């Protein structure tokens, strides 16, 4: 999608205004792969299921948004003793999205903060048609955990 990768330490992540994140579409291959991975065989995701086009799985939209924002646009560097974990997710589907439909994406780093000894970043993205009709909203809260070597569920204050 031609985005610039901006891998940063958490300390260097900045809250941004809404930015143009480029054009976007979910391909048939990606949609089918996500449906298969989730073992969701609902009929509306099958090719040819509707004359209006095949519906995009919400999981495909969310995964695409995550890859777009976290990997391609606002990458947060993870050191060997750190793990970035997806802590919260909010998804709104305004109207059905069909495979191959073209969308425009605007995204931002909405917030960053430290709480309970952990570091957090909030990412948001709006997906809309080229005419501006809202299709999908994505909000992800991501946590950077410094003590990952201590095991699942164990926590301690960040010591940097």
């Amino acid at each position: 999608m031609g985005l610039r990768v901006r891998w940063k330490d958490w300390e260097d992540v900045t809250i941004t205004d809404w930015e143009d994140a480029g054009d976007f579409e979910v391909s048939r291959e990606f949609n089918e792969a996500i449906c298969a991975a989730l073992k969701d065989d609902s009929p509306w995701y099958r090719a040819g299921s509707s004359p209006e086009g095949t519906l995009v799985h919400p999981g495909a939209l969310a995964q695409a948004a995550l890859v777009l924002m976290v990997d391609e646009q606002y990458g947060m560097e993870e050191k060997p003793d750190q793990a970035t974990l997806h802590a919260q997710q909010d998804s709104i589907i305004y109207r059905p999205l069909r495979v191959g439909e073209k969308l425009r994406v605007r995204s931002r780093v909405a917030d960053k903060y430290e709480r309970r000894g952990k570091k957090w970043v909030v990412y948001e993205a709006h997906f809309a048609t080229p005419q501006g009709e809202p299709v999908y909203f994505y909000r992800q809260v991501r946590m950077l955990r410094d003590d990952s070597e201590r095991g699942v569920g164990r926590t301690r204050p960040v010591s940097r």
Partner: protein
Amino acid sequence: MPIDSCQVVPGFELPPIQKTLKLQNMIAFSRWAHDYDTGESVHCFPEVARRKGFPRAIAQGLMSHGYLSELIAVHFGEQVFAGSRVQAKFIKPTLEGDTLTATGVVDRVEPIAGGKRVYLSVACKTQRGELVTVGQAEVTLPQAP
């Protein structure tokens, strides 16, 4: 798919769905990410997950989120693709081999122009009974003809 009106009253429990997290599915879901290409994905490579303190590969939270989306779509039908919302907190990691049960219960129903808005509490539990994902979902149902 028409929804019986008795199924959109507070307290109604949606039929749960169960999914077992197999590594092959976790890889299929997560292989699109940058850390798969670099061999550093905790979702795809058990040795990376162990190095970062997890006993096995951990599934992406978005897989649980996807199961919750399926839960409401299977029950309410295609209409959930117009005006639905799923909010989730991933409170514990889900591990390769876990079997998750996604559940939902109707909290309240509010009339809106042209239909009703249904508010649900949703969750995923492991086979050990641990809550791993909790959240809320909202669905708009058009007025029955």
